[in-house]
């Protein structure tokens, strides 16, 4: 007998999922089952980074992750930005640098950078943080304002 239920933590709350097919992507679970539309759907092939979320604190492409793979795990999305210190910090840096235009890639960038700060620490070198964002595409800003936001998000930022 197959069990089609699943549970995971999303932004600090338990999400109990019923009738969940094994091949459902985390991106679709978040957006269409849980209604958390902050995580964006871009390419669905892992090339653009717009769907980036944190799974147990690590940057993860939700379009290439099956929800089954993260059962029992803890997922953080942009919708939970107000509760997470690193997300709040990055969000403030993006505001100060006006590091967005259309904003569609923004949740992915913010979450990915927050993940890098958690993983490497707030004083990680700018180059290392920028390198960690190579998988996120932005078509509007030319990345210049995003680079300014990255510098502001670091601990020893002026």
């Amino acid at each position, binding site marked *: 007998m197959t069990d089609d239920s699943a549970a995971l933590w999303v932004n600090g709350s338990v999400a109990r999922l019923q009738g969940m097919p094994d091949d459902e992507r985390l991106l679709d679970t978040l957006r269409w089952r849980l209604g958390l539309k902050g995580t964006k759907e871009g390419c*669905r092939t892992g090339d*653009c980074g717009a769907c980036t979320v944190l799974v147990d604190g690590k940057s993860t492409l939700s379009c290439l992750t099956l929800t089954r793979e993260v059962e029992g795990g803890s997922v953080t999305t942009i919708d939970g930005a107000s509760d997470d210190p690193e997300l709040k910090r990055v969000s403030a840096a*993006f505001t100060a640098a*006006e590091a967005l235009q259309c904003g569609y890639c923004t949740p992915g960038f913010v979450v990915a950078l927050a993940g890098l700060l958690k993983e490497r620490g707030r004083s990680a070198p700018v180059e290392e943080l920028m390198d960690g964002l190579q998988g996120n*595409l932005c078509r509007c800003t030319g990345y210049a304002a995003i680079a300014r936001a990255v510098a502001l998000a670091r601990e020893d930022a002026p």
Partner: protein
Amino acid sequence: MNAAPRSDLAVKLAGAAVYGMDLDLPGMLWAALVPAPVAHGRIRSVDLAPARALPGVVAVGAEDLASLLPRGGGDPDRPIFPTGEVAYRNQPLAAVAAPSLREARRAAAAVRVDVEPLPALIDIETAFPDWPDAHAPPSPYVIAHVHARHGDVAAAFDTADRVVEETYRTASVHQVALEPHACVATVTGDRWYVQTCTQTPFGVREDVATLLGLPEESVVVEGTWVGGGFGGKGSSLLEPFALLLSRASRRPVRLASDYRQEFELGRTTLPAVIRLATAVKDSHIVGRRVRLLLDVGSSLPGRDFATGYSIGFLLGPYRTSTFEVEGYGIRTNKPPFGPHRAPFAPQCAFALESHLDEVGRTVGLDPDAFRAAHLWREGDTTALGQRVGPFGLATALEQARALARRWRAAAAPGHGVGIGLGFWSTSTGAGGEVRLVLTPTVLRIVQAEREIGSGSVLRGLAAVAERVFALPPDRVRVEYANTAEAPFDSGVFGSRTLGALGRAIVEAGEKMLGTLAERLGAPGPVRLVVEGDELVVLSGSIRRPVRDLLNSEERTPGLVATGRHYAKSNTIDEQRVVTGTFYPYTDFTGAAHVAEVSVDRETGAVRVERYAAFQDAGTVVDLPTARAQIEGGIAMGLGIALTEEAVWSDDGRFQNAHLLDYRIPTLGEVPPPEVTFVEGFPGAGPFGAKGLGEPPIIPVPATIAAAVRAASGAHVTDLPISAERVARALKLL
């Protein structure tokens, strides 16, 4: 001017902005399109029965239009579903909706399509084998022909010391807005309502009404947040199908592209071949010939704007007295040509500027000095006889040359520095209107456009009103309304938003201040000040709160004033036109760019080390958003220059229709550019502003080409300047 933060930062950073892709209505069905299996073919049958047999599926095809639409259909030249021939691969032949996307896709796959394949035309050069020697080709593929000349061109070429003749080829490039097209349609009674991520709500309304044969006022378009446009979201694409399915199912219907469809169905820049010839005598250019073959995809005859508009960019921003220019729009079995940020101008600037470099090298002229000597100044006329207005490109070039000299002096071995120029004309489009509403505490700007990202709506329009009324940013609110409620505007495109709607705000503002002065009984001009929560009208020693100046009908909405701006263009000299439609320019702007690149001597790979832009801006209205346009435009231009190329197979397949193989610039490939604005050459926008959305992309491929040649000697005549093309030019391959 003072800068206030963009008002969309918070909502976007909270993940709370609802884009087209995020629309989610109760009871909504999901839709899928049935794609044509070949690029060209005769449709024998499209059998929807197998799809309809599946549970919960609604399907619509050509034969259903008579029963679904009040007039049985729309424009016969632009059928929603083709019934005779397939024009391009993946052209929608039918549409289906079902309770889930999975079921909709299964239903679309179940539709039985029978199409007899016909030979497809994909490569434009095969359509016109005698090109470039033949004129007036007797070809059914040529759907546009433009031809103009001035002076004795034959004599100039016959008596020249040297003639330099070259051929350039440019690739098809895609807008790659990260958000795919997406909409939800809800048809109730005779109200055809669609929510969609669009740059042109009124444009979609007009398109949908034409395509479905509906009165415009029964179509209501509601813009959502837009995840990037760049020209790709400028007319209807998915909306008519979603509306038909909603009519048939009596449910809201969601239709969105996946990213492969985003590439395959997109209307964008297609390939071109450009032939440039220049006659030189006594170290002066005495004559020019320009010929263009432009792929316009399955555009309809008479609907090709691209050929007649773009070709002027091949003559460039230079005084050109003796010339002949001829362009052909070639119909192929690809989706119709569509606008991509400054449509086709970067490609034209690349060819022309690279050619001028070649001419300079051939006859021993310094190309930068030649450009400086021949650039338009205010009062000059264009090749087609238009008068040039205030134009800052000569000043921009002077500054670019000074910087290039410094960079060249400091360049590492193997590095090269190049300069490229581009010009543009802003404020195209029919025009626009705004409604200002003054309440006792805030000024509202009610208008039709959603913010697509540039900031031209939420920040640009607010900045104009702040300046007209001398109000702080927290007392000015830009509001959006749908096409049933907002005053008309032709759309966010053509670098026109700030210019057109900004001018409309200035006009409405002056009317409103006049009304306030009258009601105050003031002898002179009035101004508004903030006192506590209240807005107060002042003139000399007279002062009254706005609240006290509103009559009883104005208490709830506020004091209303409307303004409008419709772009005027000067005209071209028709005596220079032999045939076809050439489009006049409205407002002249330009940019000079400088790049330093390094070239890998083994692989040919190009790395951009430094980049700078000098942009004629008229007057900068809001510095952070202006700078952001230049930074973003440069990055997008680097894609056209170096990596972006849609690869079409001989049978009309978009072969690299995903973001791994269609490579847009990534974060490590774009050095933060130095941006300088050249002011003092006012444009037609508010306070002399000029549009900035498109101009910064135009000089980029030309600039990179010049830098690559300076660094390595490689003269690459095809876009993109891929490692492979550089390696071939250097004979490494």
